[in-house]
């Protein structure tokens, strides 16, 4: 606030530029900083103990097997099956993200624009699945999609197909199940950004001669971009590590990286190799995130709008 007042328009002033001018306030500022750190402390401690420490353990274990070695990584690089699993994991995550975006965007728009009371009811409906266990929900989908499931029965009764379609234990089943579980994250992220868009802006676009498509394409869509970016990022990252749904709804060839890690830990007891896979997943996620960040310039989107 102080910075905006003091700076000439167009050139945001950095905090350190004004620091010397307000020297007497420095002590008070430091006290305030200490207070904030104090508030952060419990979270930092918990993160340190339960996240950073085990992560370091995984990193170490991935390069330790009867002495320090990069053998586990070499094994991944050598074996095409592992590389294919990684590729499949990223592809599945991308497909799920795209479908969740296509389904979630209109739903988010409805949530953001209907009367507040109706919106509250709709939010509850969107969030409702979270109140049941993910395993129960996945089994429910298996009942629906199985060869004698409700979907196939209807399709046959309507004469759309004579043989039951294979909707389960393949890539399609995995995508359906994962999209279903992750859709609310997309919808809620989109709706919260869309709710912040001033309806007068769309009206203004119409008043300036834009038809519905032009007003959407040139005003509403760009203003909802932070929601698209945020929702897609959330769904994509959650998809990468997904385990239960692909394990239950996928076929033998639909192995995702999390399942691979689980198998190494549970059955082969190869902790070093499992750790290496986990580190690779983390590293690839971070690389993906960085690329995405550069591509859409998240920073600019989030600071300017919303």
């Amino acid at each position: 606030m102080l910075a905006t007042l003091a700076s000439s328009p167009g050139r945001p002033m950095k905090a350190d530029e004004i620091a010397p001018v307000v020297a007497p306030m420095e002590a008070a500022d430091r006290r305030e900083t200490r207070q904030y750190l104090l508030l952060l402390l419990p979270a930092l401690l918990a993160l340190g103990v339960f996240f950073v420490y085990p992560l370091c353990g995984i990193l170490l274990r991935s390069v330790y097997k009867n002495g320090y070695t990069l053998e586990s990584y070499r094994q991944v690089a050598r074996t095409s099956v592992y590389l294919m699993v990684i590729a499949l994991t990223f592809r599945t995550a991308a497909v799920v993200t795209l479908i969740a975006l296509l389904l979630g965007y209109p739903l988010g728009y409805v949530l953001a624009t209907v009367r507040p009371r109706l919106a509250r009811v709709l939010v509850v409906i969107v969030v409702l699945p979270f109140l049941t266990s993910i395993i129960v929900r996945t089994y429910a989908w298996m009942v629906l999609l199985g060869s004698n499931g409700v979907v196939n029965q209807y399709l046959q009764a309507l004469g759309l197909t004579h043989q039951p379609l294979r909707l389960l234990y393949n890539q399609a089943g995995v995508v359906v199940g994962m999209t279903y579980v992750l859709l609310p994250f997309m919808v809620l992220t989109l709706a919260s950004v869309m709710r912040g868009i001033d309806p007068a802006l769309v009206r203004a676009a119409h008043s300036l001669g834009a038809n519905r498509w032009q007003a959407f394409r040139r005003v509403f869509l760009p203003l909802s971009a932070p929601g698209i970016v945020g929702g897609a990022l959330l769904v994509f990252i959650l998809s990468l590590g997904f385990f239960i749904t692909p394990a239950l709804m996928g076929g033998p060839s639909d192995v995702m990286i999390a399942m691979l890690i689980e198998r190494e830990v549970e059955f082969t007891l190869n902790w070093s190799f499992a750790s290496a896979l986990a580190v690779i997943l983390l590293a690839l996620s971070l690389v993906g995130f960085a690329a995405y960040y550069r591509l859409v310039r998240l920073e600019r989107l989030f600071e300017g709008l919303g």
Partner: protein
Amino acid sequence: MAAPEGVRAGAEVRLQGLTKLFGPVVAVGDVSMTVPAGSFFTLLGPSGSGKTTTLMMVAGFVRPSRGAIAIDGIDVAALPPQKRDLGIVFQSYAVFPHLTVSENIAFPLEVRKVSAADIRRRVGEALELVRLTGYEGRLPRQLSGGEQQRVALARALVFRPRVLLMDEPLGALDKKLRGHMQLELKRIQRLLHVTVIYVTHDQEEALTMSDRVAVMRAGRTEQIGTPADLYELPVSPFVADFVGESNFLDGVVVSTNPDGRALVRTVGGLELSGVSREPLSLGQRIVAAVRPEKIVPYEAPAAELNRGKGVVDQIVYAGDATRYSVVLGQAGTLTVKVQNRLASRPLATGDVVELAWDAGDTRLFARAADEG
């Protein structure tokens, strides 16, 4: 966009029996008015008077329950907003936050498929018109409220609409800037000959800017006229109170004159003569209105003048003038506004003072039955 080539005379806007019902609530009831081509026309009223709803019906964002809207004789009631070719400046400016100043102003031209070269030229002219040359590449968040206002105005004018609608556009600006923008708006309106329909609750703004003003109350037009008409010849106590300021005294008619004048006796026994637009009858209950600046304290008594004697109760010094509340016993309290001149003798609380004002400045209104 400067006058020569861009001139496209403003259009006449005619509203006929325009009505908007929200369920059982009459937001706008049977409003009819003609906005002359090229004029600055203001809808003035308190909040909830239906002025913004009326404007939004003209804009096309609110569908009328009944009535017609004609622009230059062509009925536009069935057209969506984007086909009405009206410039609109919204209360919140509604400048697109993700577009630069010049992209904002180019928007209406781009959706009209104007060529890139023409867009460049016309955006430049529009920026010049609102004196924002040099701001092309700025984003709205780098602009002050007044600058955003100018961007919104340039954007609403760049496609040369024949009518410009403005919804309380200066409401968020401070007093100094508001005064400056009022002058700017008038300058631009005269230059472009565009018809302006302007919504405000600020009576001072309405008086200083408008060619004609429609005073709205509870969804209906109370009076339509020039600023001087509204101020000098209000048709109702509401207008007398809302436009400018008035003292009100209750009374009954004791004698009438064929020329429209009448003698009334107020509560508290004050005898006043005043003028009425409508004929009054003997014994009729009326309310008399007189503006604070028309009352002169300590003036030599003259036959033409209404008079009253009172005690100074409160004094408010306002720089250019001083306002006194003078209690006239049972008759009530009158606010008197005196210009601060060297010659004017300041009064003190408790002073007994003789007040006088002209019969012609005393407006008499018949009291409606429901006003008790």
